[in-house]
């Protein structure tokens, strides 16, 4: 389940990169930038729970309360 997430994230990153390039080429710089921002937010939203998970596990494993 976790490996899937990596590919999903990589896919999203690549697609966003291409969209950014295409829009930039068309001269829609502001559009391109906002797409990028949106992409980062989406990716962050997916990554942050994972990090939270990790920290939670670390805390429980090493008894840091």
């Amino acid at each position, binding site marked *: 389940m976790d490996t899937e997430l990596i590919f*999903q994230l990589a*896919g*999203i990153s690549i*697609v*966003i990169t*291409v*969209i950014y390039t*295409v*829009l930039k*080429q*068309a*001269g*829609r710089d502001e559009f391109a930038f906002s797409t990028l921002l949106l*992409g980062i937010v*989406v990716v962050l939203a997916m990554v942050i729970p994972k990090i939270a998970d990790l920290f939670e596990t670390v805390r429980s494993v090493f008894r840091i309360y």
Partner: protein
Amino acid sequence: MLKLIGACLILTACANFGFTWAGIYEKRPRQIKGLEGALQLLETEILYGATPLPDAMEEVALRCDSEIAGLFRETARELRKMDGSTGGEAWQRALDEFFPVTALNKQDVHILRRLGSSLGISDREDQAKHLKLTKSQLAAAASQAEMNAKKSATVYRYLGVLSGLLLVLVLY
């Protein structure tokens, strides 16, 4: 499996949207060019044939680009009703009806509307002048539209497919 089908549906829908959008951008210069040609025909009808407006409109509708023939056919129909509306009014009404089914934007329609107010109210030379003016305005709009289309059509095509892909990836 169900997920896969859904993903395919989303992808095709988004791609389709992109292609349609691009299609509109590509249609506009073509339709403006068609309009230019049609107005040329109308000018010929008026200047050399002195054909009455309903007949001239019908003639133009028969001979011009099929995509914009509707505008002229509709005007001729409105005029033939003889319900006390002038050529200009018939033209405006036809435009209102015809505009939503075209790729023309507000600016183009504005040019055409301005033509309507002078349609059929003066002698041949004057009519020809008005038509020439409209044609030159349309020509400017066409070249601009063409440039726009070149840039935008590909972008929208890409964007459609890619946004579909993105949506699938985010939701998967």
